[in-house]
């Protein structure tokens, strides 16, 4: 890999140990992946924040670094709400360690906004063609696919190295030739809202780390694309996808149709909705906001909860910035007994580990909750999730009735195999 004279000097340690190691990380990755040089980045989003995931090992490494980041940089979700951590039974020891991690990043000039949806933040704008070093797999997917910016799936240390240098190695999704679709997915049914999370969960398993070109019957909204990409990045390792006639790369270029073609049918999505916890267990915890809720999703949750009281734990995750910008939604949601939680999520917080059956409206959470939190997961729309939280037995009956009606409409006389149906 070609280095400038300035970069050579840094690699020889003339700018200090932290930058030397940062550059060594970027050049090693560049060599592994065949990069020709380092390129400037507009921003960094750094994973490796939750004490639950990085532990004392990560805390030690970050604390030992010196210097300041050269581009706007923010963090992935932490293991708890940094201000109201005690509401979710986080232990004081965990809270202490978590605060130390965030403070260590702040010392390096990283903003302590901890969110998986950095593209919603004011003052953190991203445009078509921008080169980035982002970590969070769903944010990487959104930046690459929905915005048309360019980033690889950076690990925590490489994203932080890129932030400290203001550069990243030029390989992978920074290059045109790696952004071409390599598999096509045709979806043979109409999709609505949470269907996109279910589709992402199914599609990610089928395509792995390839670049899919999706042919959809509907035009998805940005929140739906967010859910689709997040799920494909979790059940698979999709960092970039295109939707014919929708996403910017697909609109600007005439892609050659990929040779490999996959068809996804309604029944495959239904299977995601039909998953139940074992031994007839009902969801004890309901979570919304993976990735973090947008303003529109907060508004929807507030409308569904207005004037009602939940009978089960309901956690709504969003970024601190949006929670601060829309206090009216926060107030309505919290009045119902639900909790709005910032800076963290159901996957990276240890709070979820106490439950054995969790209901989610996210294909990504559905993929991760079993492995990361040791809980079984049930998938449903936001409406179904909130109904479950309000539920009690009355809600369940209603849901069952409605499930039957909907299935009846859709499938005619076909006999219903499972009761329920969170559509």
């Amino acid at each position, binding site marked *: 890999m070609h280095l400038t004279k300035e970069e050579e000097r840094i690699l020889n340690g003339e700018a200090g140990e932290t930058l030397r190691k940062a550059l060594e990380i970027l050049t090693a*990755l560049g060599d592994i992946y065949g990069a020709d040089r380092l390129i400037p980045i507009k921003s960094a989003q750094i994973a490796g924040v939750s004490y639950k*995931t*990085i532990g004392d*090992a990560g805390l*030690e490494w970050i604390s030992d670094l010196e210097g300041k980041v050269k581009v706007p940089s923010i963090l992935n979700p932490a293991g708890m709400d940094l201000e109201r951590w005690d509401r979710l039974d986080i232990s004081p020891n965990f809270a202490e360690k978590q605060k130390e991690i965030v403070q260590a990043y702040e010392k390096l000039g990283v903003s302590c906004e901890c969110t998986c949806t950095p593209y919603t933040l004011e003052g953190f704008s991203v445009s078509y063609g921008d080169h980035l070093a982002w970590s969070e797999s769903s944010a990487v997917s959104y930046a690459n696919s929905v915005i048309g910016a360019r980033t690889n799936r950076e690990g*925590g*240390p490489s994203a932080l190295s890129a932030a400290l240098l203001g550069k990243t190695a030029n390989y992978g999704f920074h290059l045109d030739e790696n952004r071409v679709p390599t598999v096509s997915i045709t979806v043979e049914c109409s999709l609505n809202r949470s269907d996109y999370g279910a589709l992402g969960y199914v599609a990610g398993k089928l395509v792995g780390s390839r670049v899919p070109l999706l042919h959809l019957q509907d035009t998805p909204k940005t929140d739906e694309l967010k859910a689709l990409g997040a799920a494909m990045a979790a059940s698979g390792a999709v960092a970039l996808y295109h939707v014919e006639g929708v996403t910017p790369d697909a609109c600007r270029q005439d892609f050659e149709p990929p040779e490999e073609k996959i068809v996804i049918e309604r029944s495959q999505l239904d299977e995601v909705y039909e998953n139940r916890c074992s031994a007839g267990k009902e969801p004890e915890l309901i979570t919304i906001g993976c990735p973090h809720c947008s303003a529109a999703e907060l508004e929807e949750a507030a409308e569904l909860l207005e004037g009602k009281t939940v009978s089960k734990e309901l956690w709504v995750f969003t970024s601190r910035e949006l929670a601060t910008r829309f206090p009216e939604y926060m107030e309505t949601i919290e009045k119902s007994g639900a909790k709005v939680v910032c800076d963290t999520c159901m996957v990276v917080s240890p709070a979820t580990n106490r439950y054995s059956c969790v209901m989610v409206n996210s294909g990504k959470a559905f993929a991760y909750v079993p492995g990361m939190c040791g809980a079984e997961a049930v998938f449903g729309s936001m409406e179904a999730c909130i109904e479950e939280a309000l539920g009690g037995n009355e809600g369940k009956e209603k849901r069952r009735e409605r499930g039957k009606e909907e299935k009846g409409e859709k499938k005619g006389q076909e006999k219903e195999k499972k009761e329920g149906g969170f559509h």
Partner: protein
Amino acid sequence: MVSIKLKGRTIARGSAEGEVLLSRDPISFLGSVDPQTGVIVEESHALAGKSIKGKVLVFPHGKGSTVGSYVMYQLKKNGAAPVAIINLETEPIVAVGAIISEIPLVDMLEKNPYEVLKDGDLVRVDGSSGYVETLE
């Protein structure tokens, strides 16, 4: 014994000497290794029960969580890390872990290390110049 010098690719700089410990299995530093002692705790692993502390650890490549990079750093801090690493072909988790922990790492040697090296051989790994040399 005639000394052999094998060229490879520089991943993490620095130079160290030690005894070879070969692992046929890939290693996930998160979960497979006790960060306090350097003992492999994954029961089904080829090196189960053995310590990687102070060894020139030879394994095909890393696997598992990206947190593994930080665990390598913790091993180093605890004095339980290998002194050097040789991989068939390294991947980012181990590459990043070796760099932040200052463990010399060379991969893609010109000959298969599993055919040339055996457990207990004394070798020098020079990550800066990118070679592995057997010592008398």
